[in-house]
């Protein structure tokens, strides 16, 4: 037997003090002499005689009651062997982990999840402490660890499914940290989810403390999951307006109960700005995908909000995408004026392909004026010297202020690169290298990951032969995009101010090489021009949880109006840091002055994947930490069981107080009856 607060036992000793004093005082031998007690003796016995203990059982009853109260305050407990007694009943640290990803809003999953959460809260005892954690792609604790069940229920009331995907790793790691901080002997983690398999990716590595119990609660249900997985479209410009021909990819997920050979019919509807354009039917077997093609649609000049929605079987899912007309890239080709049609191949390459479109003009360097740069996105200096005088200075200034310059060095392009013009180049132009005798040089190395070449990759470059070239010398390594087979730099590029310059060490016609005759020439020219013009294709849809950059700093520097964002639920906020976090599924509207565009946010497509994990699979994915000592491991507890844990479990103090109160009540009844007896007569 032990006591949590043994100091209170001193109170029991204090109970004896008045009794001892009373008894000692009675035993005093020094009496007060008095001449005669003839009058004292006449006074009634009770009032002259010191009170003495007459009813020893009643006295013992009172002492026992007070002693029990003193012992109760000392908080007694019986020390037990944990292994023999078991950890059952000891205090627990409970973490209720509730999945509120988008998939939990399907069917009856959410009501079942709430019911399971309330049941878990109801099982929190007075000696336990609990925390409510919600998770989707990330996890957050809604409460501090508490034993207040009402507080947990209030926190639960405000929880709703979100448009986020599912990731179990952050949630279980948060539960781990809560349990690891606890000093209670036991722990229980209640995981309430539809247990989507995709949420357990290869990087989900969760370790729970030894002794922590994991209780998965599966609230999933069978469904016919058909989802729009992606959308693609061809773009073209017709009569100055952009048109798209969408193709919607749909997929039917395999489910255990489904008949693999049974196809279901469903419909896909394409909407533009809330108006249904076209509906197509599609038949899907289990696990099959299909591409649904729609007719060509003209994109509104201000951009269009498109939705591909599933109707019929498996209805509910929709994929939103936003299309903004890109317009044409205006390109100016500067030539030396010599030779016949030196830019023929470049012009024809830029004329082929629908998106982006290129509007091309040619000028000779001698005829070039600064005004020719107005409205241009890119300039190709095709085997021509850098313009001199004011035109050259204007060109350099234009590049630094955001223009794109592609320089192709041939027979006549090596001159004029001095002073300000030389500063534009990523390196210096070397002397002509003649490789005709060797049968021509080839590309020896291509940086296919470079932004300029990434869309086309590194294939197709090996077929081109270069008979002459002017290697680029002194280029920094990060600026090199391609090399010849002799290691000399063939293509380099760098940013100048807010503009960009690409330098090609050979010609873009067939005078020094046969690159223009290779299939890779067309996409290469497109990418060089687009990259120089810093043009990039904007994504037409994002996933809830993504963070989209919105350039506000540059706009603020230009004195443009502030940038505001209206979320799908109608809430409006000012965007100050240039980052838009997508928290809801739907269209976000971004406004800056008269400028307006939309950002489409969709639920993670994988949220419709019905593949789940069974309870055994969940436990198999959880690792356990080693126990801190043998006793803890043998007892299967989280932390060593301390005295206060036993005391809280046994709660002897409560029983002692009840017995003491009963004894005091009995004493009151007995003393009252004794008081009503006739008084003793005087001597």
């Amino acid at each position: 037997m032990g006591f949590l607060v043994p100091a209170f036992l001193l109170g029991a000793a204090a109970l004896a003090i008045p009794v001892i004093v009373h008894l000692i005082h009675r035993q005093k031998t020094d009496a007060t002499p008095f001449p005669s007690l003839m009058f004292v003796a006449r006074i009634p016995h009770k009032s002259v005689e010191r009170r003495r203990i007459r009813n020893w059982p009643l006295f013992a009853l009172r002492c026992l009651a007070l002693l029990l109260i003193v012992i109760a305050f000392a908080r007694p407990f019986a020390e037990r062997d944990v292994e023999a007694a078991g950890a059952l009943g000891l205090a627990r640290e409970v973490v209720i982990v509730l999945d509120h990803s988008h998939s939990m809003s399907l069917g009856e999953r959410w009501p079942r999840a709430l019911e399971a959460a309330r049941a878990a809260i109801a099982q929190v005892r007075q000696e336990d402490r609990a925390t409510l954690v919600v998770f989707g792609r990330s996890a957050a604790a809604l409460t501090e660890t508490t034993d207040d069940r009402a507080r947990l229920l209030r926190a639960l009331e405000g929880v709703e499914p979100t448009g986020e995907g599912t990731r179990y790793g952050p949630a279980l790691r948060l539960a781990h940290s809560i349990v690891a901080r606890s000093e209670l002997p036991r722990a229980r983690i209640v995981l309430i989810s539809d247990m989507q398999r995709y949420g357990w990716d290869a990087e989900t590595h969760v370790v729970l403390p030894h002794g922590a119990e994991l209780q998965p609660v599966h609230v999933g249900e069978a469904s016919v999951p058909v989802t729009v997985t992606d959308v693609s479209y061809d773009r073209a410009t017709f009569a100055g307006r952009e048109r798209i021909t969408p193709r919607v990819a749909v997929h039917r997920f395999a489910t255990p109960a489904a008949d693999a050979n049974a196809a279901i019919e469903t419909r896909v509807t394409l909407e533009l700005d809330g108006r249904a354009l076209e509906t197509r039917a599609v038949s899907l077997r289990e696990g099959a995908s299909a591409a649904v093609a729609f007719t060509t649609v003209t994109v509104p000049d201000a951009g269009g909000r498109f939705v591909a929605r599933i109707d019929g079987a498996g209805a509910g899912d929709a994929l939103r995408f936003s299309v903004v007309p890109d317009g044409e890239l205006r390109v100016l080709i500067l030539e030396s004026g010599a030779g016949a049609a030196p830019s023929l191949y470049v012009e024809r390459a830029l004329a082929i392909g629908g998106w982006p479109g290129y509007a091309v003009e040619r000028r000779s360097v001698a005829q070039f004026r600064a005004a020719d740069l107005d409205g241009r996105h890119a300039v190709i200096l095709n085997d021509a010297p850098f313009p001199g005088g004011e035109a050259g200075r204007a060109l350099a200034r234009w590049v630094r202020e955001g223009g794109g310059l592609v320089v192709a060095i041939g027979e006549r392009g090596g001159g004029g690169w001095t002073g300000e013009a030389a500063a534009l180049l990523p390196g210096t132009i070397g002397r002509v290298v003649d490789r005709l005798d060797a049968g021509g040089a080839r590309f020896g190395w291509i940086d296919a990951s470079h932004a300029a070449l990434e869309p086309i990759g590194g294939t197709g470059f090996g077929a081109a032969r270069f008979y002459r070239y002017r290697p680029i010398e002194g280029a920094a390594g990060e600026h090199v995009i391609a090399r010849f087979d002799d290691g000399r730099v063939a293509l380099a590029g760098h940013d100048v101010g807010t503009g960009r310059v690409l330098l090609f060490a050979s010609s873009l016609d067939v005078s020094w090489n046969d690159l223009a005759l290779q299939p890779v020439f067309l996409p290469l020219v497109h990418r060089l021009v687009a990259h120089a013009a810093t043009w990039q294709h904007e994504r037409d849809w994002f996933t809830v949880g993504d963070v989209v950059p919105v350039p506000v700093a540059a706009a603020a520097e230009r004195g443009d109006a502030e940038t505001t964002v209206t979320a799908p639920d109608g809430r409006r906020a000012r965007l100050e840091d240039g980052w838009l976090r997508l928290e809801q599924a739907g269209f976000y509207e971004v406004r800056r002055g008269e400028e307006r565009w939309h950002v489409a946010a969709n639920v993670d497509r994988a949220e419709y994947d019905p593949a789940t994990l069974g309870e055994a699979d969940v436990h198999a994915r959880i690792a356990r930490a080693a126990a801190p000592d043998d006793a803890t491991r043998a007892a299967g507890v989280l932390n060593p069981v301390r005295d206060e844990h036993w005391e809280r479990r046994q709660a002897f103090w409560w029983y002692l107080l009840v017995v003491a109160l009963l004894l005091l009540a009995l004493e009151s009844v007995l003393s009252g009856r004794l008081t009503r007896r006739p008084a003793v007569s005087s001597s």
Partner: protein
Amino acid sequence: MRITAARGLPGARFIDPLALARISSLELLARTVVHGFMTGLHRAPHLGASLDFAEHRSYMPGDDIRRIDWKVFARTDRYYVKEFEADTNTNFVVAFDRSRSMRWTWQGVSKLDYARFLAATLLYFSSQQRDRVGLVMYDEDGVGDFVPPSAKHLEHTLYALERAGSGRTDPAERVTPADDVMRRLADRLRRRGIVAVVSDFYEEPESVRDALQLLRSKGQDVIAFHVLDPAELEFPFTEANSFEDVETGRRVPVAPDKLRAQYRALIAAHIATLRALLTDAGIDYVQLGTAQPLDHALFDYLAMRERLVKVR
């Protein structure tokens, strides 16, 4: 000389019991008290004290020349002194209670000492009046020392009083009833006189009356001096304890705060009853506290003597 009760006599400061306690010799103490008392009597303007004239007698050498009746000398050419009625010789016996209860004191002078001062003063005073003085001691064991009344026994009586403080202190196995004591005393006193009983009278008033009436029945004039310590009247004790009867040794646990009021009422009733019964029986009763100056007692004694002489 008519004696009237008075307080604050000039010279009465020497009669304070605490001051008297410093005087080791009872004779000296008695002489101091009497002379101081008498001096005060003579100087008191209001007294007009007079003793009734009884007769003349021839002047004898040694008589107080202030008592010479000059008118008679003028007529007879002979010296005669006045004899007052108080000058009549009588027996004066003090019955002195020296029981254990008389030795008790709370603060100040014990009852025994106070009674000795009182008895010595009365004996001395009576001796000065040419009374035949005697003394009888009694306690729980009965009658003790007895000095027969005689004009020459003053010293004997004072000596006996000196020794009254010694004696047994252990509780008595049995107590001699007061009437036995008084009966024996009455048998020994052949001649009529005055008997002053000095005691704390811790007996039932009826018993005291019956005992003192035995003396009255033998022709004695009795005056009872009831000596009590102020603590016996006020019961000022505060600490709860066992109280022990000094005469019987009996012990009783007492909570003073709870019985003080009742005790005071009982002892006040006892004194009142005793006064009433003794007065009805023709016995003078004087209640004295040990803090009281002795002049009160002397006044009462002188008043009694005056009355008794008249009746005689």
